[in-house]
């Protein structure tokens, strides 16, 4: 594991941009975290002062915002309002300050051999792919993003990825945009036109059932998938043992590891999917 240079920045909200009645993007002036963060890492945000919510909430680092000279000066968070913490983050105002702890967790592994990269995102699971895209574009890799949502209006930042040369494959369950159906439909088509020898790395983030389905298809095709899990998390530092996920052991059993320090990124083949807690959204 990486040595962790964790800092707690009292980050000013530079912007809160509503994408819809559910989604927003919050930009936080956290220059030390922005400079140190690697693709796929997360922060623990205190979304409100006082005792409710009592604990911070984990959020993927969405974008690294850079100044004119290229210096990292802020991070952004892609948020979907679900509970108290995310509801609070949906409503924050520019000028407020939020305690922001990070960067935390293991980043997406970047393999040396891959020439093609598939990113598979569902809903707010898009969040860890902007930083990954920037890192991989810099390496000159061919990137494809499979991006699924229920409805066309729930797809955000498609242009952001397209502008960076990412081959975008959009799916919607209501058929209002792109391929009709779940993201696995598009993935099946892509797999059918790919041979086992093609050097493709696959990264996936979204609802747990979606990640499980994606990983199963890739496994059938002889490939592993990097998945980024979202667990209920107490501290983000390895202190509380609440965010555990079950790994499969050689003996055929399972072993709980802390998602905050061993993850949130795992190789899908190492996970005991049946034992993963139901998705908490």
């Amino acid at each position, binding site marked *: 594991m990486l040595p962790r240079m964790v800092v707690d920045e009292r980050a000013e909200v530079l912007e809160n941009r509503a994408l819809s009645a559910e989604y927003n993007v919050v930009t936080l002036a956290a220059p030390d975290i922005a400079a140190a963060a690697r693709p796929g890492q997360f922060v623990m945000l205190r979304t409100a002062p006082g005792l409710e919510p009592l604990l911070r909430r984990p959020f993927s680092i969405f974008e690294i915002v850079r100044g004119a000279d290229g210096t990292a000066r802020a991070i952004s968070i892609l948020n979907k309002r679900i509970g108290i913490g995310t509801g609070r983050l949906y409503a924050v105002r520019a000028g407020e300050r939020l305690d922001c702890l990070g960067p935390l967790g293991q980043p997406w592994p970047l393999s040396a051999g891959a020439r093609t990269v598939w990113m598979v995102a569902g809903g707010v699971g898009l969040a860890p792919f902007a930083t990954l895209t920037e890192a991989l574009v810099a390496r000159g890799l061919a990137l494809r993003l499979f991006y699924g949502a229920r409805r066309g209006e729930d797809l955000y930042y498609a242009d952001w990825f397209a502008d960076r040369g990412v081959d975008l494959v959009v799916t919607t369950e209501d058929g209002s945009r792109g391929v009709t159906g779940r993201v696995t439909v598009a993935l099946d088509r892509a797999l059918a036109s790919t041979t086992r020898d093609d050097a493709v790395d696959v990264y996936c983030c979204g609802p747990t059932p979606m990640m499980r389905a994606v990983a199963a298809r890739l496994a059938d095709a002889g490939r592993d998938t990097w998945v980024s899990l979202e667990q209920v998390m107490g501290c983000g*530092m390895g202190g509380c043992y*609440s965010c555990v996920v079950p790994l499969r052991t050689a003996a055929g059993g399972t072993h709980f590891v802390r998602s905050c320090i061993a993850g949130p990124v795992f190789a899908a083949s190492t996970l005991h999917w049946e034992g993963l*807690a139901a998705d908490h959204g």
Partner: protein
Amino acid sequence: MADLSAPLAALTLRNPLMAASGCFGYGVEYADALDLSSLGAVVVKGLFLSEREGHAPPRIVETPAGMLNAIGLQGIGVHRFVKERLPELRARGAVTIVNVCGVTLDEYVEVSRVLSDHEGVAAIELNISCPNIKAGGIQFGCSLTGTHDVVAAVRQVTSLPIMPKLTPNVTDVASFARAAEAAGADAISLVNTFLAMAIDIETRKPKLTNVLGGLSGPAIRPIAVRMVYECRQAVRIPIVGMGGIASADDVVEFMLAGADAVQIGTANFADPFLWSRILADLESYCTRHGVTRLADLVGAVHGSRTSAEPACRPS
């Protein structure tokens, strides 16, 4: 600069702040972020003889001004601890207190014996109060003879200071403090979490996989202060107080009630860098009140007025 040191049985801690067991991993998780030696002590996660997997998630749920946990004492066991974690804690200068668990009395004894054979353990906290495991633990802590027997048995095999951690899930915690003192405990710590429950009204199911969990956080603080106060009246041995502490004000309150030192747990989850802030705030409190030695505050509330009559106390 006030003297913040905290005498605790055979130890003199640099300050009264300890990281509470179960809330700070094995300490090493925080070693890159914090100077572990700046804490009064680090109480590491509870250890059995062998590894344990703990409960299936979800293991925590938030409640008003608090949280429930049912981790189930997942842990690496004492043998891996002394090999894999204790050396780094020593190297980092942490004053290490180990929380010792057992399903049986023999297990408490054996874990304590292993720890006593290794350099770098400052004291033993006996976990007779975890509400989340089926066998052992709280079964001892909810029985006066069980409390006495565990402390007395461990006393036989170690010269390390022994500090049983008491459960608040009893009618009269002070009688358990007395049982611990009579059995040879060097100190007591209290309180562990309050057995509690939360139900999801949409799914009509318990929010925790384990159904029940332990409540911690600011919600329990006044009850914990009361229990420390009662124990201070019952025993002479030092008391380590805890329960919802999140600020220097809270630390002072526990000390006034009778705590020689304190532990901080849940608040560390929300703010892992709270230690230096609380120490600075303790300094200002001392300056503001002309206190030269923080330890002089211990139990000060007891002399301030007629001691409280027990409101409802079994004889």
